[in-house]
């Protein structure tokens, strides 16, 4: 009862603040308070409706529907990201389990982790001579570190009791990895995968401005058209998609939270 009321209240406050924001935006733009010709919220919403009502048209690379562009970006992210997870999890387990692997790989991880993945873009273009593969490569590099580091940390900080039980039963190394270590570090892996996905979604937009096609290129293209309202449309779509992706991982994390 009380909870229902507070939920409704929260919802009402959210709607109200959105309305106030839209009106303020419109007023500021209309009065030219910021800069001249700044698109107002009404124009942007009109644009949004136009783009969303027919999202999948294809009139050549410089005139794609926003849905088409979004799918192109999502596809690149999903491929690069999945490859990164496939590499990061086994490598993380190895680093967590073996002192040798840890001390031989950690310097590279520490050195490469702080580098913006965009620095790899020219390297990718030079090696692959293909913008599609380069995009996937950049996302791969982006996604690998958080998952790798979280996985390795999970293994290193695993409750020693689980390992003792496994050892006392005479379990083989592979049984211990598959049946004990992997399930035990699932929360760590998912936490890493969530951060990786968040970063990948940030980076793809920037990378695509240089690569052509995709939601990032859409922004670049609309900048060349000097159509700021379409850029706002892209920002809204990117934000919404990122939110959905993040919620998906939040849902998975709740499923694998053993403490509750």
């Amino acid at each position, binding site marked *: 009862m009380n909870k229902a009321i507070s939920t409704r209240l929260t919802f009402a406050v959210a709607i109200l603040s959105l309305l106030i924001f839209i009106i303020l935006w419109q007023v500021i733009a209309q009065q030219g308070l910021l800069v001249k010709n700044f698109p107002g919220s009404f124009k942007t919403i009109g644009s949004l409706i136009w783009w969303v009502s027919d999202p999948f048209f294809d009139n050549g690379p410089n005139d794609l529907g926003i849905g088409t562009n979004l799918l192109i970006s999502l596809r690149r992210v999903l491929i690069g990201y999945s490859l990164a997870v496939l590499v990061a999890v086994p490598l993380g387990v190895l680093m967590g389990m073996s002192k040798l692997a840890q001390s031989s790989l950690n310097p590279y991880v520490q050195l490469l982790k702080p580098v913006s993945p965009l620095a790899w873009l020219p390297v990718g273009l030079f090696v692959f001579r293909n913008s599609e593969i380069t995009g996937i490569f950049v996302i791969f590099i982006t996604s690998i570190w958080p998952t790798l580091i979280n996985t390795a940390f999970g293994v290193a900080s695993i409750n020693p009791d689980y390992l*003792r039980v496994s050892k*006392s*039963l*005479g379990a083989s190394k592979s049984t211990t990895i598959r049946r004990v270590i992997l399930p035990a570090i699932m929360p760590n892996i998912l936490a890493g995968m969530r951060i990786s996905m968040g970063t990948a979604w940030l980076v793809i937009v920037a990378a695509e401005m240089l690569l052509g096609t995709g939601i990032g290129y859409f922004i670049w293209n609309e900048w060349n058209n000097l159509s700021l309202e379409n850029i706002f449309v892209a920002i809204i779509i990117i934000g919404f998609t990122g939110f959905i992706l993040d919620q998906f991982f939040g849902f998975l994390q709740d499923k694998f939270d053993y403490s509750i």
Partner: protein
Amino acid sequence: MNKKSSKKSSSIENYSHLELFNLGKIFFKEKKFIDFRSKGNRSGFEAIKDINLKIEKNTFVSIIGPSGCGKSTLLNLIAGLQAPTSGKIVIDGQAIKGPGPDRGVIFQNYALMPWLTTIQNIEFALNTVFPAKTKADVKERARKYLRMVGLEKASNKFPKELSGGMKQRVAIARALSINPNMLLMDEPFGALDALTRSYLQDELLSIWRKNKVTVVLITHSIEEALLLSDKIVLMSSGPSAIISEEISVDLERPRDREKIEQDPNYLKIKMRLEKHLLRETRAVEEVT
């Protein structure tokens, strides 16, 4: 009674179930990559040394000692979870090389896997030890042991849904399911309330009688040791802890919690244990 059984078993086979010879464990400091000071000097922490002990088949032995003296270390060595620095461990006449399903281990913190249900925790042990068994076989056997500790109804619950006592019963069922002939228990009831503890003590005794297992129990509680054991092993304070005394508990079984406390023999042993523990604990305090 204890003496008699040991004589009997030694006439059939000339070794005990478990024999420890000059067992010692030194924990060496992990060598840092760059550590100039400890160059070539492998100094470590000697937890236990020169442990000699014989435990007969199907007896119940408790190990008592001051906190931090090396009881868990000793148990881990017997379980094969750690390698001794010196000496050897012989089970049924064979020196052990590592852990094995002939020994069921029960840990202080239950050590149940939180991602598995109660029955799956037991199935994990069974699948690991008996990889040839069919799925149905494993399930049936897991059920049987859950029934034994009275937790049939909780078979599909996760550990977080169980009380501490229930978790420890699952851990006991898991350890017994692989049909070990030795149970190694590290303060299994330490974290439980008094009522649950006495209930589980009774359960353990009946399991021990029915299953023909040798039990090595580590405990802090003198009363628990006296109630359950055939023999109590006293350890000195560490570092370099040794076995300072072995006491046979010649009290008739079944032992009644209330009545036993009036037994003059019980009181005599209890006083001896208390005196020992007090002395050794004082020794710890003087060192630190």
